[in-house]
């Protein structure tokens, strides 16, 4: 068993008296692939957003490679390590290349390395024929693949994908599933929140089941 990449301690989020997430302890192994399942409102997106530092109004802490941090004071360093992809990903209204390069620039990578990773991302997502297409004209599946490629190009230590197939047609789902399987094979640490039975059934993904904001089941 690998060492945990992240361990959550006492993660809790409430809206007034209504507790939407309460996890005493949860560990995510380095290089592990996870599916986070559960009914609507069970806290999947809330957990993903807390992990990504997008919801700092939560109690609790996490150990990231042994470094402890409270959710409320999410360290900027973790933003470079953990990348979150929305259920309906947003692509900036520029070019596909600029979208893929955005996070690479923020990390200060040299131009040659950025260009190499952008080309690799375009090829990985199968978007070569669409490289000159404005992002807003891409199909739902292409947007999802572009967003996955944009996140993967950053080589994050943890990739959080929120319902990546929820609004896709059959072809888009099949292509996204193939990319998820690749992420698993590449030993990327990835958590996929989903309802999609095909993702849930993907071999090699550990299932985390959330019910009423609590981890009800963890199975490999």
């Amino acid at each position: 068993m690998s060492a945990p990449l992240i361990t959550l301690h006492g993660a809790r989020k409430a809206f007034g008296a209504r507790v939407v997430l309460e996890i005493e302890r949860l560990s995510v192994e380095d290089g592990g692939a996870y599916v986070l399942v559960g009914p609507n409102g069970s806290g999947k997106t809330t957990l993903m957003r807390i992990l990504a530092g997008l919801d700092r109004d939560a109690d609790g802490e996490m150990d990231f490679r042994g470094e402890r941090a409270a959710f409320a004071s999410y360290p900027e360093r973790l933003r470079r390590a953990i990348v979150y992809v929305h259920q309906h990903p947003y692509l900036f209204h520029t070019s596909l290349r600029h979208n893929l390069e955005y996070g690479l620039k923020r990390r200060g990578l040299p131009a040659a390395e950025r260009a190499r990773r952008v080309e690799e991302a375009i090829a990985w997502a199968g978007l070569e024929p669409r490289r000159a297409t404005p992002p807003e004209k891409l199909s739902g599946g292409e947007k999802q693949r572009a967003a996955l490629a944009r996140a993967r190009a950053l080589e994050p230590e943890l990739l959080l994908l929120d319902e990546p197939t929820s609004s896709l047609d059959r072809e888009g789902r099949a292509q996204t599933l193939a990319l998820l399987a690749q992420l698993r094979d590449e030993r990327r640490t990835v958590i996929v929140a989903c309802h999609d039975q095909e993702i849930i059934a993907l071999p090699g993904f550990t299932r985390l089941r959330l019910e009423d904001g609590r981890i009800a089941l963890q199975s490999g």
Partner: protein
Amino acid sequence: MDLLEPTRQAFALLLSGDPRLLQAIWLSLWVSVGAIALVAAPSVALGFLLAKKQFPGQRAAVVLVQALLSFPTVVIGLVIYLLLSRRGPLGSLDLLFTPWAIMIGYMVIAFPILVVFTLSAVQGADPRVYETARSLGAGRSRASLTTLWEVRFGILAAVVNGFGRAVSEVGCAIMVGGNIEGLTRNIPTAIALETTKGEFSQGIALGFVLMVVALGVNILLALLQGRGGLR
């Protein structure tokens, strides 16, 4: 009243390159462009802050800026006049009845337009823009700039509207500029003066130029929006 003859004379004046006419046009343009160039950045920044940051008095600040939108320009002119007049607190700067005084007035007039348009554009921005930028590793400032870039056509509309309001403003320009020929007479003040003198041809010619300028900047905005996808 016969409109044809003054209109014919107006175009004859324009084509003849009448120096008084050209001077008024030039003054209008550089003072308006200068005012917008100076006030745009701080106004856009304030509009962004009012839209994104929560602080005590935020709502009151928004209401105040919105109220400034409907302030009569002559009142703005009066306040600036009092500030810049010889006995006023800024009298030593000797700016009254100069193009710089008009520029200050235009800045004050364009300020709430730029702030409110920016506020509205940023509030209408998809919240995923900022979150996506942050999640891809952008700091707060960079993510804010990215948000502004995503609503750039709304910001551009703010700038165009601010310019349109400034270039066509008359009350404040007369009060703080004095409508001095060759120095502070611009298109709108010249139209007002020439019309009261019964010199309709000058007024029509200048009015035509003003409409061409307004139409031109709006066509430019529409073209840019069309290229980037009107949203």
